[in-house]
């Protein structure tokens, strides 16, 4: 161990720390997971490297290989899938300081960035060149380009431009041998959604869009409105950049969090965002009317758009929040939402959905709870109820990471899964790169079971019981 410390210090200087307090700050991500589950993995790394240069990453990986140490890459850990949580200790490679914009090609509308660049900061710099991000996550004020690509995901603009995979054209990846390889086109695919288990991404080339202004519209839709028909019509007639839906339950939660009455007591609020050059007030009003909706004031629309990065504001009335996230075909969405509400009728629920490519919605169901409460572990089973309902009706999980690793094959399809595994066997047969992701950590006391499957099984068994554990309000009055 002393040899390891010496080598890391010699090669990486002040970018390395062995300080226990500093290391412990890396034992979690955005998710609030019960300590019982967390105790099944070694989530505190043995050493943290705050990489600033590609050479730091290369040195770290070479040392990791020589000392047979696991390496967990981490951006801002702004996702709750466990993808950035160590499972076997080892080296935590913090990439958030690799945050330089390397090159902006204004003519080609492309930008090269290091993985730790933050979406909103990139947007700010691109704007100065007349460009902007094609898409960005709703966590854009903190989440990193590399982190989102490695987790996979959709966000604002995905209706028009697709997922993060569609935006990334080329990447540089450092392997355990410390060598850098450039991948482009289809070769990028195995690195997308795989949490860095095949190598550490040190550069990404992204497609950008012209920095045109966007005009938001707010439309109130009735509870019984045909949402799929509305989405199809809006997509075809309005050429939107993005469309999101919020349930009245979500609006009530947000109203309470912000200290004002909710915008509506029933139905859905749709925020349709259109490039300003294509925005036509009359056409939007007609679209709303045809679908039984009502166009709200510009003030409401502007406020909704201004709040686009603040979906978790509702947690203020939690104090904790279980989030169930899934993809669902637009035509199945209402059936899923109806079933979710029926199953979780005793809970404080909210829903936010974003229309994405291929007539799908990325849905987030928020369930209020209190992570400090003794029955938290039981209640957690509720988080998977919406997901199961969605899966039955043609939906899928949103991402894998660690907690949902068991669903990776289904999410990606067999061909990609096999390609990833084949690549893994080739480049990292010892599973040093982000172990426990895509294939979840095995249970020490029952090795045939992994953590992800344990959670699936456990929550399936507990779900009927938790229905009796009606949601409570925890906020002090």
């Amino acid at each position, binding site marked *: 161990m002393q040899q390891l410390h010496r080598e890391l210090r010699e090669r990486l200087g*002040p*970018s390395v*720390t062995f*300080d*226990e*307090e*500093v*290391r*412990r*700050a*890396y*034992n*979690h*991500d*955005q*998710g*609030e997971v019960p*300590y019982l589950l*967390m*105790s099944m993995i*070694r*989530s*505190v790394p043995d050493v*943290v490297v*705050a990489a*600033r240069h590609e050479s730091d990453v290369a040195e770290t990986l070479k040392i990791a290989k020589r000392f047979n140490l696991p390496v967990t890459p981490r951006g*801002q*850990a*702004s996702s709750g899938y466990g993808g950035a949580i160590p499972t076997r*200790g080892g080296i935590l490679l*913090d990439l*958030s*300081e690799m945050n330089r914009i390397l090159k902006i090609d204004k003519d080609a509308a492309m930008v090269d960035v290091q993985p730790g660049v*933050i979406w909103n*900061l990139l947007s*700010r710099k691109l704007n100065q060149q007349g460009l902007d991000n094609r898409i960005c996550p709703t*966590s854009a*004020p*903190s*989440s990193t380009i590399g982190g989102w690509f490695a987790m996979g995901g959709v966000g604002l603009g995905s209706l028009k431009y697709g997922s993060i995979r569609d935006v990334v054209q080329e990447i540089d990846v450092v392997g355990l041998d410390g060598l850098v390889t450039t991948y482009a086109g289809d070769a990028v695919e195995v690195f997308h959604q795989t949490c860095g288990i095949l190598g550490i991404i040190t550069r990404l080339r992204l497609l950008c869009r012209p920095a045109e202004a966007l005009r938001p519209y707010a439309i109130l839709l009735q509870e019984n409105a045909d949402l799929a028909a509305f989405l199809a019509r809006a997509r075809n007639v309005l050429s939107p950049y993005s469309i999101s839906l919020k349930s009245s339950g979500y609006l009530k939660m947000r109203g309470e*969090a912000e200290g004002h009455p909710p915008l509506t007591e029933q139905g859905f609020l749709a925020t349709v965002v259109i490039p300003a050059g294509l925005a036509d007030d009359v056409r939007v009003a007609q679209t709303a009317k045809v679908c039984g909706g009502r166009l709200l004031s510009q003030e409401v629309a502007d406020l909704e758009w201004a709040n686009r*990065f*603040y979906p*978790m*504001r509702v*947690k*203020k009335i*939690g*104090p*904790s*929040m279980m989030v169930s996230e899934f993809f669902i075909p637009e035509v199945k969405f209402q059936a899923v939402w109806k079933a979710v509400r029926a199953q979780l009728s005793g809970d404080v629920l909210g829903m936010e959905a974003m229309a994405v490519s291929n007539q799908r919605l990325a849905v987030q169901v928020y369930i209020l709870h*209190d*992570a*400090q409460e003794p029955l938290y572990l039981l209640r957690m089973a509720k988080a998977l109820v919406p997901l199961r309902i969605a899966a039955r009706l043609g939906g899928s999980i949103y991402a894998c990471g660690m907690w949902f690793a068991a669903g990776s094959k289904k999410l990606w399809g067999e061909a990609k899964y096999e390609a990833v595994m084949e690549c893994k066997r080739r480049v990292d047969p010892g599973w040093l790169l982000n172990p426990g992701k895509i294939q979840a950590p095995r249970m020490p006391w029952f090795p045939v079971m992994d953590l992800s499957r344990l959670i699936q099984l456990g929550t399936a068994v507990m779900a009927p019981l938790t229905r009796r554990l009606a949601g409570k309000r925890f*906020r*002090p009055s």
Partner: protein
Amino acid sequence: MRGQKRSMRATPPTELTGPGFTKDQAYALETCARCGFCKPVCPTYPFGGGFEAFSPRAKVHFLRELRAGRAELTSDWVDRLFRCTTCARCVSVCQTSIPLVQLWEAIRAETVERGVGPMPAHQKLSVFAEQTGNPYGEPTEQRVRWMLPEHQPAEEAELMVFGGCTASLRLPSLLQIGVTLLQRQNIPYTYAGTSERCCASVFLRTGQLEMAKRLIAGNIDLIREKGVSQIVTPCGGCSKTLKYDYPQWARQLGKKWEVEVLHFSQVYLRLLESGVVNPIRTLGRTVTYHDPCHLGRAQGIFDEPRAILQALPGVKLVEMEYCREEARCCGGGGGVRANYPEMANQMARDRVMEAMETGADTLVTMCPFCQLSFDLVLKEMGYPLALAGLEDLLLESIIP
């Protein structure tokens, strides 16, 4: 796993008992969304080597762990908790509106109560205040040396000038200009002179609540004796403290507090808008304005200074990339300058560089702390940019 196991063997839950750490604040801790929006905007985070533990998000997580008995208030954590300028940039981006600055102040109070805080330089400030009523340790009589012969405060008036320690003892021109304007417009004002004590801002920010309590109690009594209904001060820190902390402390001390607190920028703007003060001289300057944290984010005073600048002939305002709600801190607040001067200076340097990128020839601000912070580094940089208090420009423009 070693760390993990240790954390599972919990010591008995540790209640944070620092005065001000209320039930609501404890609840707010639990609402942290762990989104990390606070991390990239925190001006002190970059001084932690790029490690998560120095981010506001990690500090909130630590406080939760501390309350649950899974972490200890070690000297390293105390040091991290004091490396915060209380600039409130984290508060302005927080998804769940956690009153983070209140939490930082509460935990600092807790460190003092447990005898592990504050930092050495902060203790010295307390000793000075004990002896002289100001944290600089200047003799009490120095407090009124800023006064010019023409300044004739009334024994009693509705408006009271609160000099504040930094303006009174380090940047007298801020008071000289403001009070001269009041005097020449025949606006009656009173002033406590050598009886005025430190507003206690630095002691509240560094958790030294006993000292703060004594100073505040003394000032409240003094202000009540004078029978004033308005206070005006040139200092962002004093005005924030008088406006937001004094009412709470008055309640706790069982004293009456019905006073409107103004910053001089608000008075200047009223004088300009009412036509009482007329800027006539063309200044020919391109300026950029630095929003002091305690004035801008803390009190929402963003427009007044800009309106004053716009009213000055020949002054062109160019904004820095990070301005108003997003303005970066000068490094002077929260006791950071006292105990971590190198860090404070680097923050000031970074802000000066940002100001220079605008192409402005003058960096303007309206807080003595910010002005002193910038002056220190500008001197070292050979003044590539002039520095002025907004009041200096106002004065320059009204003199024929």
